[in-house]
Structure formats: structure tokens, C-alpha cells
């Protein structure tokens, strides 16, 4: 069979054109392509007649055309081939997407930040590691195993005007602890300021009044009650208030092992007092009584008698008939 070369040429040309047609898409208005977001935006109007008559086919062709245009653009980008996978490097996206969450509000500056801004104090960037001369090595500026750790000193100078019996190490530790406590309080205050809660005072936590538990309220009440010039001595007791004379007192006991005679003497003393059955004089209590009555005499007015002076405190009730 003889084939004419012209026909063959035409046939090949037509085949190639068909192939090209599958790539080329013509649109009235050019489609916006944003390669960074892998987004193609078709702004052409829809063919409503075709949409009604053959909906699925029409939508599919529209989608194919869009995708085709997008891929045409992608193929124009610089392309690499890594292990049989073709990779295109996408440019930064041009379409601005709205964010999911609202923009965070700027944090309210702390008291210090406010002050620093007012005075123009700027924070200097300091490196994390510092050269430690003693150990000849780089160590962190703060925290565990820090450089130039002043709490690890084995000897401390006693200042000239200081009490020689004062423990300088203990003093230093105490000061450090106080600084930490102060900082913590300021942190809590800043939080309270930021959240619009009441700024806490010393001794109470930053819990709002209505959220306080019964025990918290009770302890706060007793702190408040004792916070008078007389340490709450003249405060009236409420009707249903519990008797909390010894609140906050710690029990203290003698050591288990003592010098042999001290304990014996103490017990014999107690025995003697028991046998005497005489009212004991509690000196501190008596003095307090005097002070309260306003009957502390000045040295000049020596004539006046100490009217019903020391109200004696009897040593314990006598028990009646005994259970054993």
C-alpha cells in the first residue's frame, strides 16, 4: 500500500494539534492563578444553558480547565527531579487568607515595664553563658550550676558593724528567700491587675471573695481579727464563732533524751506544786492584768496599794471522783 507523504504529514500535524488542544484552554477573561496557594480563580460567567442541560459534564470540564491552567503555570516554575519525583518550587502566596482566630490583644505591660518605658530603660541582650573565672569554664548566667554562684561561698566576711554572733550564711539565705517571695507577690499582683481582679494584699492569695472556700474565709477572718494593735485581745466574739484561742500555735515538746536530772527535777517540781495546793502566780498573766487595768504605778506614786493586784491563777481544776 502506498501512502502519500502529504497525507501522512497532515495526519501527524493534526494529532499533535489534538495533543496541544488538551493543554491549551481559552478563556474570555484570563484566570487568576496563585501558585503559592495552589489556587486558580475563574471569574468568567457561567454558561447557564449548558449548566441546565448537562450539569455534571459542564462542571467537570470547568474544573478540568481550571486545574489545567494551574498546572500549566506550575510547569513554568523551576522544576527539580529528585528520585523520580518531580518537584516544583512554589513562590510565596499572593492571595491573602483571613485568619481563623481573632488577633490577640496586646498584653498589658507589668508595673516594671510601664516604669521602664517611662524612664526609657531598655533591656540589654545578655548572653546565656558567662565565663567563670574560678572553674575556668563557661557556665550559665543564672540557675543551676551558675557562674559566680554567691550562695556557694564557703566563707563570708562579717561586716565590721555587724553582730559577731549573727550567722552571715543564714542571713544571706533569708535575704534571698525574701527577694523570691517579694518577686512572687509582685507577679501575682501583675496577674491580678491584668485580669481585672482585686489586687491581693500580703498574706492572702489572689482568690476572689466569692470563690473562697469556708476554711479560707475562716483563716482570713482570724487573721483580720488579730490584726489590731492589741493582737485582737479586745475583739468581740461573734455569736457562733468557734473558740480558737490556740490557732496557729505549734506544739512544742521536750527532747526525748535529756540530762538525767532536769526531767526529774521538773517532775518533782510539779509534784510539789500539786501537794501544796496553793494558788500559783502566773507572773506574765498578772502583769498583763495590771497593764490592762491601767494600774501600773509610776515609781513616784508608791503609796497606792496594788488594788486586787495579781489575780492568782490556780493550778488546774481538782478532779472529782475518778474514773481511773
Amino acid at each position, binding site marked *: 500500500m502506498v501512502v502519500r507523504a502529504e497525507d501522512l504529514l497532515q495526519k501527524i500535524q493534526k494529532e499533535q494539534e489534538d495533543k496541544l488542544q488538551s493543554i491549551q484552554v481559552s478563556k474570555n477573561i484570563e484566570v487568576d492563578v496563585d501558585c503559592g496557594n495552589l489556587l486558580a480563580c475563574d471569574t468568567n460567567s457561567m454558561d447557564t444553558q449548558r449548566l441546565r442541560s448537562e450539569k455534571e459534564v459542564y462542571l467537570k470540564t470547568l474544573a478540568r480547565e481550571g486545574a489545567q491552567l494551574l498546572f500549566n503555570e506550575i510547569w513554568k516554575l523551576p522544576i527539580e527531579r529528585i528520585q523520580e519525583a518531580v518537584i516544583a518550587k512554589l513562590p510565596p502566596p499572593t492571595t491573602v487568607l483571613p485568619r481563623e482566630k481573632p488577633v490577640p490583644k496586646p498584653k498589658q505591660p507589668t508595673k516594671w515595664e510601664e516604669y521602664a518605658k517611662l524612664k526609657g530603660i531598655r533591656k540589654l541582650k545578655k548572653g546565656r553563658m558567662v565565663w567563670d573565672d574560678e572553674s575556668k569554664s563557661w557556665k550559665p548566667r543564672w540557675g543551676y550550676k551558675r557562674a559566680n554562684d554567691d550562695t556557694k561561698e564557703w566563707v563570708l566576711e562579717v561586716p565590721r558593724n555587724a553582730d559577731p554572733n549573727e550567722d552571715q550564711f543564714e542571713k544571706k539565705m533569708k535575704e534571698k528567700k525574701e527577694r523570691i517571695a517579694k518577686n512572687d507577690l509582685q507577679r501575682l499582683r501583675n496577674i491580678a491587675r491584668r485580669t481585672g481582679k482585686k489586687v491581693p494584699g500580703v498574706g492572702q492569695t489572689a482568690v476572689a471573695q466569692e470563690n473562697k472556700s469556708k476554711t479560707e474565709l475562716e483563716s482570713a477572718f482570724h487573721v483580720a481579727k488579730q490584726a489590731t494593735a492589741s493582737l485582737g485581745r479586745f475583739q468581740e466574739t461573734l455569736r457562733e464563732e468557734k473558740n480558737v484561742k490556740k490557732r496557729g500555735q505549734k506544739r512544742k515538746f521536750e527532747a526525748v533524751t535529756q540530762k538525767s536530772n532536769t526531767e526529774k527535777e521538773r517532775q518533782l517540781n510539779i509534784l510539789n506544786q500539786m501537794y501544796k495546793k496553793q494558788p500559783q502566780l502566773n507572773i506574765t498573766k498578772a502583769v498583763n492584768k495590771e497593764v490592762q487595768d491601767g494600774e501600773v504605778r509610776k515609781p513616784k506614786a508608791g503609796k497606792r496599794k496594788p488594788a486586787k493586784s495579781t489575780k492568782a491563777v490556780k493550778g488546774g481544776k481538782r478532779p472529782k471522783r*475518778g474514773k481511773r
Partner: protein
Amino acid sequence: MRPLTEEETKIMFEKLAKYIGEGIKDLIDRPDGAYCFRLHKERVYYVAEDIMLKATNVCRENLICLGVCFGKFTKTRKFRLHVTALDYLAPYAKFKVWVKPSAEQTFLYGNHIMKAGLGRITDNTPKYQGVVVYSMADVPLGFGVAAKSTSECRKADPMTIIAFHQADVGEYLRNENNLT
């Protein structure tokens, strides 16, 4: 284990004084060595000091008992004597009650002493005085409280209670678990 506080010492001494009066002094101030009172798990123990020192090596949870248990403090901080203290109460007892052999058993079973079972009683025993109970052979059996004074005892009829039972040696069998 710890020494008693002043208040606890006083409570305990007041209880002991009902039975042995001034005899407490002899318990504290002994010629044959140093003895002391120690509180452990709300119980008061009377211990020789060297034993107490050794017991300090035992941790609180593991220490069951040391020396002689005199009694315990109740939750309302009253002091209750235990029978184990009898060995120290008996020699110093000021007021005694002797029980007839026929009534020994009922007393050892935890009953009060009736007039019928009363063998002897110390003269001038006041009412509600702590007494130590002996058998007629002078073996200490327990202790209690006089329900009647000596003079009242004479007129009392056989079924009246003369002494209230508080503790008896029968508890060593009946109440073995709680005596440490």
C-alpha cells in the same frame, strides 16, 4: 516517743496520787537507777532511762511498747490507768481492800466488790478514794474506787457495792490485745 508535757504530767500525777499519794516521789526519784515517763502512741510508759535510750533507735511505727505501760490518755486528755501499772501501785498503795477467796473470781471477771465479798478494808478510807484490791493472801488483784467509806461499810447490807471495779489482773487474759 516523747516526754510528757507539763500539763500531761500533772494530769497523770493527779490520777496516780489517788492510789499512792506521796509514793509518786519514790517512782520518780529511785535510788536504783534513773527512771522516766515517756508518751508513745498516747500511752504513758514508765521506763528505765538506759532502756529508753536504746528504744530511741527504733522508729515510731515499729516501736510497740517499752518499759511498763501505766495507762493512756483519752481523746479528751483524761488519763486512764491500766492493770499493767498495778505492780507499781500495789507497794505504795495507801488504801487497800482485801477480797474473800469466794469473791476473788467475780472480781477477776470484772465485777464490782460487794459487801459480801469484802474481807478487810483500810481504816479511814474516804468515799470515792482510789484503792488497790488484794486477795486475803496479800496478792494484788487489781484496783478500783471505794464506793463507801469505811464507816459506811460497817452498816451496809451484803449486796451493796463497796468498791467499783476499775482494773483487775484477769484483763491479762480477757483484754490481752489491748495491753501493751
